[in-house]
């Protein structure tokens, strides 16, 4: 697993993908921070509630090549004929993408420290927010990885991942048009955005953490199943 992780992580930085993702995230989050800082807000919570859009934009790029590129270059033949478990391939890849994402998020700590020079911030709220956006992003990574394992084309993988993200976001709006109570409840329950928002409001609800971790587990598991199924195709 560590071998896969190492290779995958390095591949992000030997290709322009890793660098461009980091640049994109740093640039937009920096812009956001600048605006918030200039308007005299002393905490980043507001920033976090907007940040999810940038995350939505970078995740498909981060995950699109994970499996589809292996298939296109036929390097999957190496992985699946090597004496390793299918699960270590999926986990290694998931962790590599998550690590790059974590590096992108690390800039937020820098912003928080800058704020700390001027006012004494509430670090607990910050960590709550940080954990929220980390889990939110990792769930999307798991979904993106699963999509990538279904197709040979990076572009298709990216587009479908983005579409799923949009659906998860817009599912909130649909609830307004549904009259049935239980259906509304179900839709709100699966809304990732709603769960994320509760983090940015500063409430740390364990059920939300469990929710994100479950999403990650389900999609990593599904990815492993897809790999296994493919041998019977």
């Amino acid at each position, binding site marked *: 697993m560590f071998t896969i992780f*190492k*290779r995958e992580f390095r591949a992000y930085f030997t290709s322009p993908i890793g660098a461009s993702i980091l640049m994109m995230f740093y640039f937009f989050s920096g812009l956001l921070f600048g605006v918030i800082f200039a308007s005299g807000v002393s905490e980043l919570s507001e920033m976090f509630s907007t940040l999810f859009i940038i995350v939505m934009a970078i995740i498909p790029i981060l995950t699109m090549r994970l499996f589809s590129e292996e298939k296109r270059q036929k390097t*999957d*033949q190496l*992985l699946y*004929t*090597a*004496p390793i478990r299918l699960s270590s391939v999926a986990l290694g890849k998931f962790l590599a993408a998550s690590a790059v994402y974590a590096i992108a998020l690390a800039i937020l700590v820098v912003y928080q420290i800058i704020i700390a020079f001027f006012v004494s911030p509430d670090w607990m709220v910050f960590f709550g927010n940080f954990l929220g956006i980390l889990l939110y992003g990792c769930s999307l990574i798991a979904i993106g990885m699963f999509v990538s394992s279904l197709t040979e084309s990076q572009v298709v993988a990216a587009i479908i991942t983005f579409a799923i993200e949009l659906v998860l976001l817009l599912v909130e709006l649909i609830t307004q048009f549904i009259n049935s109570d239980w259906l509304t409840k179900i839709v709100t329950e699966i809304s990732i955005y709603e769960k994320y928002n509760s983090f940015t409001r500063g409430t740390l609800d364990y059920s939300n953490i469990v929710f994100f971790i479950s999403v990650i587990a389900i999609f990593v598991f599904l990815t492993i199943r897809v790999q296994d199924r493919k041998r019977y195709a």
Partner: protein
Amino acid sequence: MIEVKNLTKRYGNHEAVKNASFTINDGEVVGFLGPNGAGKSTTMNILTGYLSATSGTAKINGYDILENPIEAKRHIGYLPEQPPLYLDMTVEEYLDFVYYLKNTSLPKRPHLAEICQLVKIENVKKRLIRNLSKGYRQRVGIAQALIGNPDVLILDEPTVGLDPMQIIEIRNLITQLGRNHTVILSSHILSEIQAVCERIMIINQGYIIADGTAAELSETLSEDYTVVAQIIGPPREVKEALEGVKGVKNIKVMGLFGKATEYHIEPEMGVDIRRGIFERVVAKKWTLIDLTTRKMTLEDIFLKMTEESPERLNRIFEARKNGEEIPEFDEEGNEITKDDEIDSVEEIDEIIENKETTAEAEMPQELEDTLQFENEKVVVDLSDIESVEDEKTEESEVTE
């Protein structure tokens, strides 16, 4: 040791591998031979655990590839049709990666150095795989298969797309590897398989249609060495006369080719009867218009086997399995039975008579005229070529 039992792989309705069973012993170098799309790569992909069989089992050194994949895969080095290389890595990084991927216990530095030396890639170790030529990429692919020193090497078309020099080098390398590995190699080029492998398995349309050494295949599948002669002369007398030639074992009268009759003459082992036949025919003042020897080469066998339709293959396959004589087929695909052979001389006399009468009756006067006319024209052309040429140019001017 590789044991394959009743292996079948189905893609939807298409059966890529049909009920394949074979055993490959330690140290054997086996060649899978077959045209593109015959099922060679599919078989290899199943053996290496990349694909799963629809039914049947494959065991590598006693480990079932489905039930105990990790142990089984530990014993295999696989070079797929397209070497599985990460283009964004250097050769060194890549081999490191594979080393850790295979989780081998061999000491890393000397092991990798040994492999690099063996496949001659030491001088490109620091280069990006993206920038390597096809020959070098293939070698890196072989190097990758060798990491962990597996007992079984499975190489899928290792020389495709290489230049002749590289092909020879790779072949030598495979021969070298064959000394202490079990090697399975696939190719659609016969000479390649013949050059490297002790044992050949011919695969077509999912069937293993032949299995044995090159010599065995020639022996069991080809007809014996025969002399084919076409002679113009009375068949009965010709047959009798030729039977008297020294070394002739058996003569079959096959049929008419124009005015000549074809005879398939089987000589005794190691005797060249062609001279004797020629002299006999000349002495009798008949006309010998064709005299050839026919021996099926491995190439012929391969072509013959791979051109067969699945039904006929199935028939051959069954016959082989039951130890019956391998059936032969005519051009339309019907099985040739003993009845089709012309064995009585009377019969051929009859055919000749019929043919002569019909030929004479049907030859129209006009056709004969044109034939003669053409002959005359040739004479004129030869004697007076220049004038004809002039005429031609004039003609073309007129048409213009």
